């Protein structure tokens, strides 16, 4: 496999990200390319896209090419009063949707596992913001607290059967259908209006928390808001962090703070993460956990347009005088000219000037 311009870009970015994470005491975590399939089979919906590449190992065990890193990290977590702070950069293998086939996806990220407190949550969010800043001068880190919208629906006494559809519509910022659904189910226009306000609220985090506190929220939503407001105060001064309650994450795995990061020019989130205490419980681990992943493969779009020419000068020669040709090519190279020597014009090569080497000299 050849080393592409995209590989060079992602290597460079990972070095920058790792430098940010190392400064907060995160250590490199390496995983093998394979894992027992059983780990993923039990938590399939945690992994984006359901298809996993499997094979039978020499001892008969069904193995998978790793579609995700977080599950492996958790599996190897042992109870400890101290936090595990890890970062990784690995290739994962999965099919985003059945029609697209399998892809090798380069993913970097960090995980903070253990007895998490407010400081640790804020530190992970801070590192997410700094990671985005390392990718682009302009970035947006959207934050939400899953307990806010969920708590609001519970406080308002909305039928739990409606909850998945309402949260889906919230994810689309789809006011018209959410209002119609609530009206069909006898929910008051006042509650529908509050739901609408919440899914469309978009403001810097602290300002958004203040605006939410002015709404008549019930006990569950107010508790989530109180947590979010503390996070907002602790993050004061960090630019680019917004509240967006329309963010969706699978509530079987995630709870509390979730986040997505965006940079201009890439049409989908380049960073995704949040608190996944629910996943920890499903894997029988008594600890909190929070982390995020940066999708390095999406950053290929940041590559500048390729050079118009493959070589500034193409020198054709007959191979009779290698010493003399070496001197001429080196002299041109020393002038900053990209030079290619060949015996014939290569098919498809884009070059500036065509020269011929003959009798110890180059001629046009």
């Amino acid at each position: 496999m050849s080393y592409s311009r995209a590989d060079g870009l992602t290597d460079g970015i990972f070095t920058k990200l790792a430098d940010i994470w190392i400064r907060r005491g995160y250590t490199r975590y390496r995983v093998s390319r394979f894992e027992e399939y059983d780990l993923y089979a039990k938590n399939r919906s945690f992994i984006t896209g359901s298809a996993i590449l499997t094979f039978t190992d020499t001892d008969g065990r069904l193995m998978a090419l790793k579609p995700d890193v977080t599950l492996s990290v958790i599996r190897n977590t042992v109870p400890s009063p101290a936090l595990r702070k890890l970062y990784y950069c690995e290739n994962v293998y999965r099919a985003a949707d059945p029609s697209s086939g399998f892809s090798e996806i380069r993913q970097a990220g960090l995980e903070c596992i253990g007895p998490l407190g407010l400081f640790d949550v804020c530190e992970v969010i801070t590192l997410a913001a700094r990671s985005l800043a390392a990718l682009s001068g302009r970035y947006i880190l959207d934050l939400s607290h899953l307990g806010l919208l969920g708590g609001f629906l519970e406080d308002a006494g909305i039928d739990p059967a409606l909850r998945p559809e309402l949260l889906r519509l919230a994810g689309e910022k789809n006011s018209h259908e959410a209002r119609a659904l609530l009206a069909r189910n006898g929910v008051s226009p006042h509650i529908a209006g509050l739901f609408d306000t919440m899914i469309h609220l978009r403001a810097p985090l602290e300002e958004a928390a203040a605006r939410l506190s002015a709404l008549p929220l019930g006990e569950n939503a107010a508790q989530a808001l109180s947590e979010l407001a503390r996070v907002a105060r602790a993050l004061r001064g960090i630019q680019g962090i917004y509240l967006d309650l329309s963010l969706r994450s699978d509530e079987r795995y995630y709870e509390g703070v979730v986040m997505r990061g965006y940079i201009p020019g890439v049409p989908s989130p380049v960073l995704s993460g949040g608190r996944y205490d629910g996943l920890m419980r499903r894997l029988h681990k008594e600890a909190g956990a929070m982390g995020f992943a940066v999708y390095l493969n999406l950053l290929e779009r940041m590559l500048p347009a390729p050079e118009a020419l493959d070589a500034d000068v193409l020198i054709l020669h007959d191979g009779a005088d290698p010493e003399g040709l070496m001197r001429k090519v080196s002299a041109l190279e020393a002038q900053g000219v990209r030079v290619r020597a060949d015996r014939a014009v290569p098919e498809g090569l884009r070059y500036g000037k065509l020269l011929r080497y003959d009798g110890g000299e180059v001629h046009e």
Partner: protein
Amino acid sequence: MNDMLNVALPKGRLGDKVYALFEKAGYGCDDIADPGRKLVFESPEHGVRYFYVKPSDVAIYVERGAADIGVAGKDILLEYAPEVYELLDFGVGKCRMCVCGRPDFRDDPSRTLRVATKFTRITRDYYAALGRSIDMIHLNGSIELAPILGLSDVIVDIVETGATLRENGLAVLAEVCGISARLIANKVSYKFKYEAVTALASRLHDRIEVTQ
């Protein structure tokens, strides 16, 4: 240039109808009246750039960020479930997604129902919600032929006036959902062009309310 809003409109009658709403909302573009061979129409004074694409491709242009916003039918949004925001219901291009078949068709729950359709996801979700097992037959066109020739028991398709069904001796047996044109936005564009997108959506919303 990138600060302009790129708007993907569906080619055809629906595109003309919704463009008229954009124009009335204050986002007109003189070039569209005289398109010639142009594919892209810019209105720098209103900060918008329009282009017309196949209706079923609008959601792809928006999801992939080639367009910041676009107008797509609800049938396309339900069928392809793109990762986009759905900001408005234009209330135009109204029709229904329906289960159709021979008027005397009676479903026999002891047999697997054979359903022909272009809209496999919508059909699968509809019958899954009913708990009905089906044999899905994916067709690309002339769906009405399927029950006539015995290829399927019923079809799931868009019904506008019902004239084609009637002419072929078919009838609507059940309505799956209503369809109309929706304003959609790329999620990243929505964030980086928030003021422009929300101002446009708000002015369109006001215009739609006046029209309705």
